[in-house]
């Protein structure tokens, strides 16, 4: 099985150029700073009033998530079922995410440098606002269960609970209209269940440990980690994928 990443990389470069320049200089309030005024990114992670880590902030991935192999997994750790192979052929051709301004899937959604996301806390929910495609997620932390028969969606339905200092987020309710990566990657089906374990190591660094469990598509679950760094004194930008759209008429296979 060969993973073709060239096309995905080209796409990433195109997509990201617009969002690299974080332009708005507005000091982030209430963060620890060095004597010279710069944020102290190795200060301890802030805590919520209930003692849990406060994940809020604007985060950007250190590395690109393209597919599991790009983050160090071995091919024999990510093995497709026969049904998964069929699905992959279809989703590779659909090339939905990115190309047609359709939403990115997790884990690419949080794993593309240049597309930061902002985490905000509210009572019973943690919101994640993604610069990519203007989308958002609500992670319900009020104790509710995952829906038994969820509506198939692009970003799924998420519930979270704390295990020690890690926020463990379970997400189901995905559609099978796109693949896990940007412009391809590995396939997903409606049986996909993603577990994210968010752990804020200190003020400026967070890791998200992903487990991808999709028994229709993969012989066994597989895991990897995305590392994040905090962006301070700035804000997420507005990104409207369809703005000044010039590509569609040139697309073959549309």
């Amino acid at each position: 099985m060969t993973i073709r990443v060239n096309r995905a990389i080209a796409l990433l470069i195109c997509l990201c150029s617009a969002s690299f320049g974080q332009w708005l200089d507005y000091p982030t309030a209430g963060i620890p700073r060095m004597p010279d005024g710069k944020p102290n990114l190795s200060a301890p992670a802030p805590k919520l009033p209930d003692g849990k880590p406060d994940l809020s902030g604007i985060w950007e991935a250190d590395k690109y998530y393209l597919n599991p192999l790009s983050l160090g997994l071995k091919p024999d750790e990510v093995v497709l079922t026969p049904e998964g192979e069929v699905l992959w052929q279809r989703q590779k051709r659909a090339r939905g995410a990115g190309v047609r301004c359709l939403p990115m899937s997790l884990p690419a959604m949080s794993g593309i440098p240049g597309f930061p996301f902002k985490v905000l806390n509210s009572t019973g929910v943690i919101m994640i606002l993604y610069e990519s495609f203007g989308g958002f997620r609500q992670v319900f932390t009020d104790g509710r269960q995952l829906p038994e028969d969820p509506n198939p969606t692009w970003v799924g339905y998420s519930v979270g609970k704390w295990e020690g200092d890690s926020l463990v987020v379970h997400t189901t309710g995905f559609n099978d209209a796109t693949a896990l990566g940007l412009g391809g990657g590995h396939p997903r089906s409606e049986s996909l269940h993603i577990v994210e374990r968010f752990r804020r190591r200190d003020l400026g660094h967070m890791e998200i440990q992903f487990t991808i469990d999709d028994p229709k598509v993969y012989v066994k679950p597989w895991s990897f980690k995305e590392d994040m760094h905090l962006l301070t004194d700035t804000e997420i930008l507005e990104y409207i994928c369809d703005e000044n759209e010039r590509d569609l008429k040139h697309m073959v296979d549309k």
Partner: protein
Amino acid sequence: MIIKASSYLAPFLLAAAPLGAQWLHYPTPGIPRTPDGKANLTAPAPRTPDGKPDLSGIWQADGAEDNPAVRDLEDVSPTSEGKAMLQPRAPGAPCLPPAIASVPLSPFKIYHLSKTLVMLSEYNLFRQIFMDGRPLPRDPNPTWLGYSVGRWDGDTLVVDTNGFNSERGIIGGRSGSGRLGPRPHSGAMHVVERFRRRDFGHMEVQFTIDDPKVYERPWSFREDVRLVPDTELLEYICEENEKDFQHRVGRQ
């Protein structure tokens, strides 16, 4: 020449159609209820710990045929520059964002945090309204939804927004006596929204549009929204199963 509220609603009706059915039944915790268990929509508006009205909730415009969503719409004369801009592109059709004033026409959810008010729109968009006392940016990036700051005037949240681009019209909706049509705006537009939660289940949003490049004077209208309890926002992805583009005339 007076800009009349004209028929511009079609793309919005199309865009809004799949959003009507709220399917997920999950009881909204912590809201006042009548003895039969239904949400008590005429209970007093909730308050935040600092005593201000808490605007949190899922809201949807009163938009039925006989119950117009846009009220008290003022007619206004365009400037000569404004006359030249009277043919804006339809916003909904190419899957571009609805204008700021159209956001309340689809269901939206407010999270009222201590320093930020977050609006999640079922159009798959979000707005952040900064309430930490910062001023509007002096040289803002031109965007579709603008840059918003909020402050309290008594029990009314007053939201100032600038930083708009000049891509297209403002709003499609309808009023009792006519319809609010495509009203263009420039990058100089300044919008003031006044959010007043009258009671638990009802809020009004008064819009004032000040765009001296395009209009001879500021003009205003109101949108009434109601709380939608025991449900959740749906995911709406405009580009999904897109079949229209190839049929469009006048495409770029």
